[in-house]
């Protein structure tokens, strides 16, 4: 099984992979100096995002186990990649996520109910993309990367100064669409940054069976500006994203960030990772936990004390409670709404069909 293994944690601090904080919580001041003003507020804020995101994910997992959700795709282990990147964007930078970006979504203000609705089977997407500048999830892999490029072309037409940001995975990188998107972005110089959360696995398929060269090298081959970053180092992700996005905002070529991280859970609540990966790999990555190293940094610097950590933990519990409550209160979907939302104006044919359906249903009341 070891031949199948994806990038080991060791690989995430190879020379060409940006890291600012190591697993022991030590900040590489020299590396950070040129890139980022590491303030206590910033680190605390990112820590809080990650803790809340993790607690939310855990709660959603439990809700699935309790039968409240049909399915859940866990974000455990990817908190730094998500919080670090989304927080480096401007609020109006438009995001096109894949389907596992719960931490990023929470940072944008999307509510637990909005996030859970789809996995409860109550909708296919429930938040307003305009409100959060965050598109609904895309379950067909890599399709969103092309939507993002098109949106970025529109930003360019409008002479806007926002940047489009799209998340996708190591598995999705193999799809034709992902590669068409990289090429299209390079050709049009659209203001976009691709963010690949390379978490080592696509369900049971390890990164080693997915591609043969680093994904950041592939992006360069398409003519993008690309960097690799330790995806479990929230400051490195934040710094790399900020730099890349600002470069693009000021007219630079489209960018690509490969964040090396790890999917600590199974692919989803339906998955059984025991069938394909060994626990030693998991243990190695546990030592690289993205939250823990920030806690160590905060403590070492005296930027946070036990009261602070307790307060964050209590906020997290509050979020969990809210999540449970909101989840159970999610309205049941109605097929009538699907009829009404299929086209902008319900056609005669759809109206007739809907009325037939409603009459039939009523006949059982």
């Amino acid at each position: 099984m070891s031949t199948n293994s994806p990038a080991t944690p060791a690989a995430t601090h190879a020379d060409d992979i940006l890291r600012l904080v190591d697993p022991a919580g030590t900040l590489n001041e020299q590396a950070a100096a040129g890139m980022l003003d590491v303030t206590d507020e910033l680190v605390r804020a990112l820590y809080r995002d990650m803790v809340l995101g993790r607690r939310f994910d855990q709660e959603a997992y439990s809700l699935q186990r309790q039968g409240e959700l049909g399915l859940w795709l866990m974000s455990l282990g990817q908190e730094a990649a998500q919080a670090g990147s989304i927080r480096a964007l401007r609020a109006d930078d438009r995001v096109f996520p894949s389907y596992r970006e719960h931490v990023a979504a929470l940072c944008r203000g999307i509510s637990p109910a909005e996030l859970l609705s789809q996995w409860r089977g109550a909708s296919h997407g429930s938040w307003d993309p305009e409100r959060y500048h965050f598109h609904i999830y895309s379950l067909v892999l890599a399709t969103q990367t092309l939507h993002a490029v098109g949106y970025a072309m529109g930003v360019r037409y409008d002479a806007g100064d926002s940047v489009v940001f799209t998340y996708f995975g190591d598995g999705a990188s193999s799809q034709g669409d992902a590669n068409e998107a990289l090429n299209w972005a390079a050709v049009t110089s659209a203001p976009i940054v691709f963010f690949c959360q390379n978490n080592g696995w696509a369900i049971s398929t390890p990164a080693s069976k997915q591609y043969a060269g680093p994904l950041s090298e592939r992006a360069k081959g398409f003519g993008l500006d690309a960097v690799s970053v330790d995806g479990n180092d929230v400051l490195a992700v934040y710094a790399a994203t900020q730099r890349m996005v600002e470069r693009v905002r000021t007219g630079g070529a489209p960018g690509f960030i490969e964040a090396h991280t790890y999917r600590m859970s199974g692919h989803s609540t339906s998955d059984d990772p025991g069938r394909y990966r060994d626990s030693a790999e998991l243990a190695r990555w546990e030592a690289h936990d993205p939250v823990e190293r920030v806690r160590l940094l905060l403590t070492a610097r005296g930027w946070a004390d036990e009261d602070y950590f307790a307060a964050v933990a209590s906020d997290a519990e509050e979020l969990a409670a809210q999540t449970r409550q909101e989840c159970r209160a999610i309205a049941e979907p109605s097929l009538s709404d699907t009829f009404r939302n299929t086209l902008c104006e319900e056609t005669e044919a759809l109206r007739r069909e809907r009325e037939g359906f409603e009459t039939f249903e009523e006949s059982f009341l």
Partner: protein
Amino acid sequence: MTSTAAAGSARKDAQDKGSTTTLGRALNEGLRQAMRDDDRVVLLGEDIASLGGVFRVTDGLAVEFGDRVVDTPLAESGIIGTAIGLALRGYRPVCEIQFDGFVYPAFDQIVSQLAKMRARSRGLLRLPVTIRIPVGGGIGAVEHHSESNEAYFCHTAGLRVVACGHPQDAYDMLRAAIACDDPVIFYEPKRRYWDRAEVDLGRPVDGDTVGRARILLEGADVTVVAYGPTVAVALSAAEVAAAEGRSLEVLDLRSLSPLDTTELCRSASKTGRVVVVHEAPVNVGLGAEIAATVMEHCFYNLEAPVERVGGYNVPYPPARAEGDYLPDLDRVLDAVDRVCAP
């Protein structure tokens, strides 16, 4: 009837070629007008800028509208995928697929993304994307350049599918399609690009042209249902049949999905005999839906089973055999005979 008269005069015009416009040109004018009226209309496609498209439908538009006419990389999934993104940003993209047989690489973006995104967002998002596809055979082309794939898109909920059959409709329907807030698959009958008729280029946008079928010729004995390239075939058949004393009613569907069931069933109930003509293979084609719909609504008025005249259930043949493959006058008249003496 006005429509009958219009159809008749359009066909007369095709002969004298006075101040007439080709179907291709009418489309070009439709695009131009739409782009002038709304600067959110942008065009995406392969070779549509300096070349003006392989059928010249976008001829001259790059000169007038600059970067609103985009020569894209050669990737159909990319064309539709980026059009979706542009639509989300508030644009109204009009995509050109170079030939019918090259739309399949974009199938996922059309069927899973474009068609479903509004429903997925619970009605929050609008996707006003028009996909122009030159369709059908009869031009002696090589493989993949003569396909009729409307059934795939008609079967896909969330799309509107239309086909124009003559120059005035080409202009009117394209403008209506672009003005429509839903995704529209817009079929252009490629062997009719050079058909001529008098076209009123000043007509206001009329949504009915992409929603309603139209009786092109009234008749009493048999309803011939056609769309796109087969409209002209149906009209010729009617002419020959008339000489033989048989009165055919010619219905141009225009809207393939949703079907204008009202008009279709009105005519079917009146004549009691229906022949559908399309170029696509018959098996699970649009003709099957028309037959099933007519049976459902007009069962007791039908004098004979609905006859389907279409492509055979084989891959499109080499060009030198396409004459045998495409539904022509003879095959339509043969079907008319069958429904009349079943």
